Structures are given as C-alpha cells and as structure tokens.
C-alpha cells in the first residue's frame, strides 16, 4: 500500500488539468482505477470488487443494459446511469450480454444492480476528482 506522502505527491501531480482529465477518465472507465492512480490502493480495490460484482450479479439476474433511445425518457436515463460504469458496460453491450429477460422473476433486481452500479461509479469518479484537486 502506498504511504501517505507518496499518495499526496501523486494527488498534487494529478492536479494538472491534463492529468486531471485522464484521472477522471480512468476512474470512469475502470472502477477504482482513478483511486489506484492517486495512490489510494485500498479504496481502489473495494470499488473495483464491489462495483464489478454488482455489474456481474445484475447481468446474471437477467437485467438489461438499456440502450440510448432518446424517444423513451426513462430508458435514456437508465442508459446514462448504466453507462456510468464505463468499459464493463461498453464491453457487455458490444457482446450483447445485457439483453435482459423481461419475463424473468429477477428482471427488476437485475436492472437495479446494473443501474446502481453505474451511478455509484459516477460518485467514485467525483471522489477521485476531489482527491486529485486536493479537496480530500
């Protein structure tokens, strides 16, 4: 695990505008990657395991990865929420893993896991940003 001083050094370096964007992009693309970049290894591991578990369970429960259908406002909102998880969402959509089974008894549970995982990752991105600019 990184020491506090090295974590602070990394956070200072990450406050540069270009690096800040990269940290936020990394944090969005892979849950926990932003915190790992900033030297917060323990937090990174928890975010990675918890959010990917939620995503995997959501798919296993036959939830749907909602597409961006701008005519349907609720579907669009769910798509934005799920998209918050970054690369796992993109990869799963690419391989048609989140087609969803609306008749499955666990359909709503699956959707809840998938949507909440994406929203939580957006909070994780904000937290990485706060650490990078020295607010935390």
């Amino acid at each position, binding site marked *: 695990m990184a020491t506090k001083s090295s974590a602070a050094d990394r956070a200072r370096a990450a406050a540069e505008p270009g690096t800040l964007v990269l940290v936020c992009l990394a944090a969005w693309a892979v849950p926990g990657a932003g915190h790992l970049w900033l030297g917060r290894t*323990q*937090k990174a591991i*928890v*975010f990675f395991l*918890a*959010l990917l*578990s*939620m995503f995997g*369970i959501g798919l296993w*429960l036959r939830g749907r990865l909602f597409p961006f259908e701008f005519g349907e406002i609720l579907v669009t909102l769910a798509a934005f929420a799920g998209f918050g998880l970054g690369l796992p969402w993109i990869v799963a959509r690419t391989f048609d893993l989140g087609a969803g089974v609306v008749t499955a*008894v*666990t359909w709503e*549970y699956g959707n*809840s*896991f998938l949507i*909440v995982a994406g929203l*939580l990752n957006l*909070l*994780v991105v904000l*937290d990485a940003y706060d650490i990078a600019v020295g607010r*935390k």
Partner: protein
Amino acid sequence: MTSHLLLLIVFAALVSAVFATLARDEPRAQLRTGAMLFAGFVVGAIVLGWLMYPLPL
C-alpha cells in the same frame, strides 16, 4: 436465485461497502460506517415491508 431477502442483503452489503469507502479514509471507520449502513438498509427495508403489508387497503 429468487430469494428477495438474499438479494436485498447482497445489494445492501455492496452498496454499503462503496458508500463507507467513499465517506471514510481509515479502514476501521469504514468498517464501522459500512456496518451501520448495512444494518440500516436491511432493517429499514424489513420495517418498510411490514408497514406496506396492508396496502392496497
């Protein structure tokens, strides 16, 4: 897996872990906050479930 309670517990555990890790920096404080959040989620859901039991009236 179709157990509502088990899914509730898994969901509450994972969400509590993320919130506690976001909110606290020390592992000990994270554990304490996570445990309190988890208990709040599970107990709150069960209490709400019982309160809604007579609905629709």
